[in-house]
């Protein structure tokens, strides 16, 4: 499946596909299910070619029935399978919210610990591809709100390659959100494995902590480089796992740098960024030398026109400006 280049770099898409193929090969309980993942090859070509190797039972095309097939995935998980369900976008996943939240996330608790639900639900998220207001939003924060699930946001090729296996091994529901702009990104997949419990410091620094995840990691790293030119040494933290949040990592960092900016493509109101900001306030108020900054999407449904879409999303400039303000606020 994988077309490794001579440099050893592969795309995020290839990394994900390699991981899926490996899971199908290694574990006969694993099967894939979703809209157009089989003969069509996957809306974003992540599953391209898998039906040829594993057949239509294990690379199972579904009708357009998100609640139905996500629920079927949950039921199959209860029945001993290890389904990896693909929902085309996080917007479409709203049609399956009932199954994800009222069933998958609650069944273990409602049943007094009797029925755990080892299902993996993958979905794309985010803007940047001019797909407008019904394919471009970032609702991962909503999932991260719910106890009983794990929410993963692989931001690097390495995480795309290696997060799937521990997600499948997790006895409880795991949501994997894949930012649509990342599929073509190239990187070194590494040799694995990776954990799905901890945030990662993607760039160490001492003056300010930039906290982000998923699709906004590349721009945040870019912003950190721009800040370095100003003499501001920014630490960049990739949350990786949005629930449960590894707050120890970012609290430790902020306690050291005394300043933080959270970059989150979700809307600012009631956002994951809000949660992180609140935890920083709770966890290291007396280490803060400036208010926690946030760079989020503008509070509009995502527009189609490219310049408007760009304006609506977090940008390098906004991250740099927010970081400068925090540092200035802190002397």
């Amino acid at each position, binding site marked *: 499946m994988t077309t490794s280049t001579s440099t050893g770099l592969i795309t995020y898409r290839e990394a994900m596909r390699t991981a899926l193929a490996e899971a199908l090969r290694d574990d006969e309980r694993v099967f894939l299910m979703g809209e157009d993942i089989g003969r069509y090859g996957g809306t974003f070509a992540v599953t391209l070619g898998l039906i040829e190797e594993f057949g239509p039972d294990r690379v199972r095309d579904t009708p357009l029935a998100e609640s139905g097939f996500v629920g079927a995935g949950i039921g199959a998980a209860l029945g001993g399978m290890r389904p990896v369900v693909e929902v085309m976008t996080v917007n479409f996943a709203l049609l399956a919210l009932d199954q994800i939240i009222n069933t998958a996330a609650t069944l273990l608790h409602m049943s007094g610990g009797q029925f755990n639900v080892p299902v993996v639900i993958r979905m794309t998220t985010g803007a940047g591809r001019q797909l407008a207001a019904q394919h471009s939003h970032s609702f991962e924060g909503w999932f991260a709100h719910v106890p009983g699930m794990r929410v993963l946001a692989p931001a690097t090729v390495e995480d795309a390659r290696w997060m799937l296996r521990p997600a499948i091994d997790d006895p409880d529901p795991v949501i994997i959100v894949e930012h649509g702009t990342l599929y073509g990104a190239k990187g070194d997949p590494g040799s694995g494995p990776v954990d799905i419990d901890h945030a990662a410091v993607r760039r160490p620094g*001492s*003056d300010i902590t930039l906290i982000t995840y998923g699709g906004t990691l590349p721009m945040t790293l870019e912003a950190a480089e721009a800040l370095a030119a100003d*003499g*501001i*040494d920014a630490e960049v933290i990739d949350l990786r796992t949005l629930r449960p949040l590894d707050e120890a990592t970012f609290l430790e960092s902020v306690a050291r740098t*005394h300043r933080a900016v959270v970059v989150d493509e979700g809307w600012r109101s009631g956002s994951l960024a809000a949660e992180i900001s609140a935890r920083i306030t709770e966890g290291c*108020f*007396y*280490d*803060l*030398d*400036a208010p926690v900054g946030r760079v989020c999407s503008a509070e509009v449904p995502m527009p189609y026109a490219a310049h408007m879409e760009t304006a609506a999303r977090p940008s390098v400039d906004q991250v740099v400006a927010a970081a400068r303000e925090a*540092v*200035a*606020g*802190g*002397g």
Partner: protein
Amino acid sequence: MPSLGADMDSGTLLEWKVAVGDTVAKGDIVAVVDTEKSDIEVETFHAGVITELLVEEGTEVEVGTPLAVIDDGAAPAPPAETHPEPEPAVEPTPEPEPEPAAEPAPQAGDAAERPPVVHSPIVRHLAEERGIDLSTVQGTGPGGAVTRRDLDAVAAPADRPAASTAASAPTTTPPRPTEDGSRVRSSPLARRRADELGVDLGSVTGSGPDGAVTIADVEAAAGELPTTPAPASPAPAPTPPPEEAATDRSATVRAATGRLMARSKREIPHYYLSTTIDLHDALEWLERTNRDRPVTERILPAALLLRAVVVALGDQPRLNGSWVDDELRTADRVDLGVGVALRGGGLIAPVIPAADTLGLVETMDALRGLVGRARSGRLKGSDLGEASVTVTNLGDQGVESVYGVIAPPQVAVVGFGAIGERPWAVEGMLTVRRVVTATLSADHRATDGHEGARFLSTLDQLLHEPDRLSEGTPS
């Protein structure tokens, strides 16, 4: 009265569907009850003969109240009721959660023995808004923290005279009001650090948004290098504690000084020079000058020495500046750090800004003001600026000479010991002269011994020609 819903606590008996003497079967409707939602029929779960109706129509009763007595004819025992087991209409009560261990209510009088209490931001805000001194409020929160309820209790005019008369204890964390009583805007970290360093927030000029005091401002004021990216040359030495401050305050001053000095000795290759200077001419000149001045405006020898240092630096500007990023940055003016010994111990070094623009009298005025403010704990923000060079004078401690440790990023510290009489040879004759030992500790990265020696030599010359120090600005 049956419970007909999870949210039903009581109901009104609207209508009896049965009368005394009626025979009822299990499941029969016996009454209609008005709940908050609607009228609902009530069935009996027991068969028998109604012998008594206990609740009149139109009466509201709590859930669990017996409504009627049904004789099931089974036994002569007490008659069955609508609820044969009229147990209290409550769920088995879960064991109460253990009360959080009550913190002993803090006594106002023992405040000084307790660690500083941290109050929440809202409490601090409200206290300021209402003009309440938090140190006078008895807190019932965790660790004796004052809660909003405590504040409300204080604010209530009745029967709380204690609020204004309780013993005052230094509560460290709440930001101090400025002179006009408004709140000092400051970051949480700045407040915490100010407590550690014993810096009075009200005396610090904030550089953050709308003048907010930041960590850099506090550390600059305290003489510790900021950890922030903006390279700022701090003024040396921490601010004094208020007179009444507890010992832990001076301990934190001590700790801050210690860190700074350790860093200096670690990083700065010091070299040391000294010379003993005959002050005969200078002091005679000073005595003549002072004869015409009111006592309160007399010029002290210390001011003359400072003035001499400033003028001498004009010839050796490389001793006046800072070592930053592996290079010397000479300062374009002399911001003169002045070591001040505090009553009760401790040494600080507030700053006379642009001392090279001051004549001798102005230097004296500046020194007098600085020492007074330092010893009363009322240093101004401008007193805590960044020094370009420091003079330390241990003359009043009686020591002969002092070799200072440079406060980074400065590159020199000039020391003076006590002015004392010594046998002194002048033109081949032994005489007694008042002399002072001047020392120079300098950063070898910035200057070498040759430059240092020339500085001390110039200093010596100037003190033999006090007219050059008397007025005007140095060349």
